[in-house]
């Protein structure tokens, strides 16, 4: 699975996710990536793209939950990401990337690694795997 989340200079957030799914999956299997609220979500607060065990991401409505805890619990972006990864996946394994309308970027995962990269306008840039 691949994904991208962006907040532009006007504070508009967007998210996109694309995948081939699971190796040896049943024909017709649909995962989290095309499900709005599970694998992908964006609103006026943030943009989120998820990857990992699709069925666990669907159960946890992971992408929407990041936005929801920001809105209803008042958490900041990274705190929301950490909370969702810790509390909403149960036994599942997944990761996600997120941006906020305020120009923040965050990622979180409970797998051994996630291919990821992020950058902000003030010059921060990082690419990582583990």
């Amino acid at each position, binding site marked *: 699975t691949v994904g991208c989340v*962006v907040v532009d200079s006007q504070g508009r957030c967007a998210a996109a996710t694309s995948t*081939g799914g699971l190796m040896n*999956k*049943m024909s017709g299997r649909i995962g989290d990536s095309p499900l709005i609220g599970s694998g992908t979500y964006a609103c*006026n607060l943030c943009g989120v793209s998820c990857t990992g065990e699709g069925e666990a991401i669907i159960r946890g409505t992971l992408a929407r939950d990041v936005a929801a805890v920001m809105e209803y619990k008042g958490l900041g972006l990274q705190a929301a990401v950490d909370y969702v990864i810790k509390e909403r996946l149960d036994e599942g394994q997944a990761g996600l990337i997120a941006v906020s309308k305020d120009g*923040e970027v965050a990622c979180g995962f409970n797998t051994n690694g996630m291919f990821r990269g*992020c950058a902000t306008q003030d010059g921060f840039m990082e690419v990582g795997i583990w």
Partner: protein
Amino acid sequence: MGGWAIAVHGGAGIDPNLPTEKQEEAKLLLTRCLNLGISALRSNLPAIDVVELVVRELETDPLFNSGRGSALSENGTVEMEASIMDGPKRRCGAVSGLTTVKNPISLARLVMDKSPHSYLAFSGAEAFARQQGVELVENEYFITEENKGMLKLAKEANSILFDYRVPIAGLESCTAVAAAVDSPLQMNGLPISIYAPE
């Protein structure tokens, strides 16, 4: 606070024995995609255009599991899916079951912009793609030799691989597959029995 920001990912759950050269290849691709997005943001493209642009680039490179380089179904074919969402008015588009659309994310964008719906799948999505004139290719375009090998491994282990980036070097190096050999049918590394009956 404020200003633009961008993040990309190429998947989670990675083989701990991934060769160094593959790791470097992945980092180079992520860096290239980040720079592509940064250029677009500096050109004042809106966020929705930037995410589509970057994911198209990721779909075109066979390194990650999307577009070219997608994981294979049990039939040895590729079935792709994608979604896109624009924050300001929460407009969204999604597609599933694509077999010939070169860039699924662009079709998802068209669903959002040019259809009365949010989600199209299988034959309906393919028909919409033809109607919209997006680039179509044969299913074989998306299939790589590496993934054919991975499917063979998965079938031999009778499992569905969560992490499909296992080096061809040896079955013993894949913990997910090795576990499956001693276990009943698994999905996402878990016994199939824990899932809903359907």
